[in-house]
C-alpha cells in the first residue's frame, strides 16, 4: 500500500526539464594545482555566488547538477575544457559567461558556451580524444624516439594496484610549432574507455628513453582541445552547442 502511494506521488511530481548549458573553460595560474574534486567544488561555489538558478540533484545530499567532460589532473592547465551546467531556466549565454567570470577566482575562466538539448548524450560519454601541449626542454626529440617504438609499456595504477599497460596505440597525432622548438602537441585517446594521461606519457619517456626526470617533473602541460567522434574524424566538442 505504502509502496503504491509512493509510486503515485512520484509520478505526480512535476518532471523537471533541465536547461543544459555547455561551457568551454580555461584554467591557468595557481588554480591548476587543485584536484578534480576541488575544481568541482569551486565551480559549484562560483555558480552559487553568481546566483544561477542551478538545478540540484535529488536525494539525501542534494548537490548542484554539473558534469565535467574529463577530469583534469593536478598541475594540468587547460585552454579548452567543458562542463555542463544544469539550470532550472534558460539564461542568456552572454550573461552566464560574464557573471561566472565576475565571481570566479583568478585563473579560471568561461570562454564560450551554449545550450544543448536535454536528450543529447552525456558530456562524459562524448569525449573520444584530447590534445595536450607540453613545453619542456628537448621534448621533440624524445617524443620522436619514444614513438618509434612498436610497443610502449608503462606501469599504471589501476584499482589501487600497479599494473603494466600498453599505451602505444593511444597516440593519434603529434604536431609541433616552428616557433616553439621546445614544445610539442600530442593528440591521444581520451574518455572513460581508453585514456592516456599526459603524466603517463612523460613517465614513459623518462623510463624508456631516459628523459631527464627534472625536465619531466617541470614540463608545462596544457590541455588544448577535447574531441568527439572517431579518429580520424574528430570534431571539437564545441560543435555540440554551436
Amino acid at each position, binding site marked *: 500500500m505504502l509502496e503504491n502511494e509512493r509510486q503515485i506521488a512520484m509520478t505526480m511530481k512535476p518532471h523537471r526539464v533541465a536547461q543544459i548549458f555547455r561551457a568551454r573553460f580555461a584554467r591557468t*595560474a*595557481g*588554480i591548476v*594545482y*587543485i*584536484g578534480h*574534486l*576541488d575544481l568541482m*567544488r*569551486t565551480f*559549484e*561555489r*562560483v*555558480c*552559487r*555566488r553568481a*546566483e544561477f538558478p542551478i538545478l*540540484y540533484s535529488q536525494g*539525501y545530499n*542534494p548537490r*548542484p547538477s554539473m558534469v565535467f567532460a574529463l577530469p583534469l589532473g*593536478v*598541475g594540468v592547465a587547460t585552454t579548452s575544457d567543458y562542463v555542463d551546467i544544469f539550470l532550472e531556466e534558460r539564461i542568456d549565454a552572454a550573461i552566464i559567461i560574464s557573471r561566472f567570470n565576475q*565571481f*570566479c*577566482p*583568478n*585563473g579560471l575562466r568561461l570562454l564560450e558556451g551554449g545550450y544543448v538539448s536535454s536528450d543529447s548524450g552525456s558530456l562524459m560519454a562524448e569525449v573520444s580524444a584530447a590534445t595536450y601541449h607540453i613545453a619542456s626542454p628537448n621534448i621533440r626529440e624524445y617524443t620522436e624516439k619514444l614513438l618509434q617504438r612498436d610497443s610502449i609499456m608503462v606501469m599504471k595504477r589501476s584499482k589501487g594496484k600497479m599494473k603494466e599497460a600498453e599505451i602505444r596505440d593511444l597516440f593519434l597525432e603529434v604536431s609541433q610549432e616552428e616557433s616553439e622548438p621546445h614544445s610539442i602537441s600530442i593528440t591521444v585517446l581520451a574518455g572513460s574507455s581508453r585514456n592516456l594521461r599526459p603524466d603517463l606519457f612523460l613517465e614513459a619517456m623518462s623510463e624508456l628513453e631516459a628523459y631527464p626526470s*627534472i625536465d619531466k*617533473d*617541470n*614540463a*608545462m602541460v596544457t590541455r588544448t582541445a577535447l574531441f568527439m567522434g572517431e579518429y580520424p574524424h574528430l570534431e571539437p566538442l564545441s560543435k555540440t552547442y554551436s
Partner: protein
Amino acid sequence: MNENNSIHRVELSRGDLLSVENPARYVGGEWGEVIKSEMLRQLREEGTTSYLRFALCFPDIYEIAMSNLAMKILYKILNDIDGVACERAFSPWKDMDRLMRDKALPLFTLETRSPLNDFDVLGFSLQYEMCFTNVFQMLDLSGISFRASERSESDPIVVAGGPVVYNIEPIAEVFDLVFLGEGEEVLAEFMDLMKIYKASARTNEPMSKASLLKEASKLEGVYVPSYYSMDYNTDGTIKSIDTLVEWAPKSVRKRIISNLDCVDFPTNPVVPHTKIVHDRAYLELFRGCSRGCRFCQAGYVYRPVREKSIETLCGQGYELEAATGYDEIGVLSLSTSDYSSLPEFLDIMVEPFADRHTSLSLPSLRLDSFSLELMEKVSGTRKTGLTFAPEAGTQRLRDVINKGITEEDIMSSLELAFAGGWQRVKLYFMLGLPTETMEDVLGIAQIARRVEKLFFEVANREGLKRRKPEIVVSTSMFIPKPFTPFQWEAQDTIESLRDKQKVLAEALKSRNIKYSWHDLKTSVWEALLARGDRRLLDVLTDGYRQGLYFDAWDDCFRYEDWLRVLESHGLSLDFFGARSRGEEEILPWDHIDIGVRKSYLFHERAMAYQEKTTAPCHGGCRACGAAEYNTGVCHA
C-alpha cells in the same frame, strides 16, 4: 611572472609543487584573497613600498589555519585599513618544509609569494599551546632570529595574539609585543603607530624599535614581554615578576570590543580552493560564556558575555552566504543555546537558506527538548549524531566543576531524541578532574549503560524493532589552565589515568558502546606549556633544533624526546604538571589582567571543593571583576 627583479618572489617550480601533498596549500589565488595593486605597482616601479606590509602568520598547515575565524577577522580588519597590506603565511607541511630547506627557499606569503623578511610586521595567531614550536619553524625558514632581543632594527616587528597568549611566557621573549584579548581595535591603533614608525625610517631621524614599543605599550591590551623579568626561588617557583622600565604597568589588561555591532565582521572571507578542516562560512553569535565551568579557560578569559544584535547577525548571515557561495553556514559561540534571540534568528534564517540549499550548523548546543526541535528544523530529516558533554560521571563531580547539566537532563532529552529517530550519541567526559575518585570514573559507565537501556526501552515502546544505538564514550585528560579556578591544581599522572581508563573500558564493554580516548602524553605536554614560565624557551628552541615540531600532530609529537630535552635543562615535568600551587605562589601570568580577579578564581576553587555550584551570570552578578568593562551582560 618575473616582470621585474625588484619584487622578491619565491619561485616554486611545477615539479616542486607536484612533489608535495596537496599543493593547493601553497598557491593562493583563492576567491576573496586581497592583493593591493597599488602596493604591487610601487614595488615594481620603485622597488619599495609605502604600504605597511603585515604577514598574518598561523603556525599550522593551510587546512587548519584557513578554518580559523580569528584569521578571517584579522585579515579583513587589516586589509580594510588604508595603506596596510595584509598577506597570509602558514606552516609548510613536512614535505614542503624539507624541500624549502634543501633548496634554501624562504617561507613566503600566499598572496605575493614574498619572503617574510620583506614585511614590516609578522603577526602570529596562537590558538593552542602545541603550535609554539611551529612559530620557530616559520621564523627559522625566514632566517629570522627567535628572540626579540637578538633581532636588529631592520628585522620585522614580531607580534602575537590569540587565546593562548594569556600565558605566553614559555615563548614570550620571541615577541616584540603581544596583543591581549580581542584585536580588532588595538590592531588598528597599532597600525597607526607603525605607519609613523615606517615613515620615519625615510627621514634623518628614524624612530627606534624601542620607542615604537614604548608608544605601543600605552595602548590598552599591549604587552611588551621585554619590560618584565622573572626571578626564581631555588625550588623553581617564581620569586618576583619585576618591571624593567618605569612606564611598564604592573599588570597588563586585556582588550575587548564593547559593542560587537560596531566592529566589522568578515562577510567576504577567503574561500579556499581545496577542502579544509571546517569547510564552511562562519557567523559569530556572541563572545564570552556566562556558565562558568571551572575547568574552562574560554569561559573566563572572554568575559563579559556580549551579544551581537539579531539585526546585525541576520544581515551578516545573508551577506556571508551570498559572498562566499558556501552551502553551509556555521554559527559560532561558546554556547549557542545561550544566545537570547536564537529562536527568532533561526525563524528568520532557516527558510530562505533552505530555498537556496544552504544549511545552518549549530554546534555547542545544550541539548533539551527545545534544541532538539531546532535541530529538526535546521537539519530537516537528517538524523546525525547527538553530542553531550557531561564532562564528569557523577552529580557530585559535575557540581565540583560547575557543569550545570544533570543526568535527568541527558535522559529526558535522549528519550525525546530516540523517539524521534536518533540513534547515535556521543558522550564526552574528562578524566583526572580535581577530587575525582573511582566512583566518579565508574559513573561514566553507568551513564552510558543507562543511555543504552533507555534506547531499547524507547525503541520497544515506539515499535522501532531491530534497531541498535551507537554510543560513543570519549574521555580526555583534564588539563589545568591559567585563569580558571583550577589553575592551582595538580594534573593527574599518566599512570593513574591509565588505571582509570582500564577500569572504565572494562565497565563499558558492550557491543553498542565504543570507548575512545585522547593521547595522555599530548595532554601532559600541553599542561606543561599551558602553565609554563620563561625557562621553557630554551627547552623549546632546543627541542626544535633537534627536529621536534608539529607537536599538535599526534604522529609528529615525540613525548620521550621532549622529556629528555626538558631534563637536560634541569627541569621536571612534575614541577609544571603534577604539582598543586599554593594560594600565595606567584604564577607566571600574574602580571596579566583578564578582568576576572585572582581572588574570585580562588573563591570559585573553594566552592568547587565544597561541591557548591555557581549560577550563570544572567541570574545576577557574581562579582568576578569583569564588570569593570561595563558592557554586555555586566552592563544590564
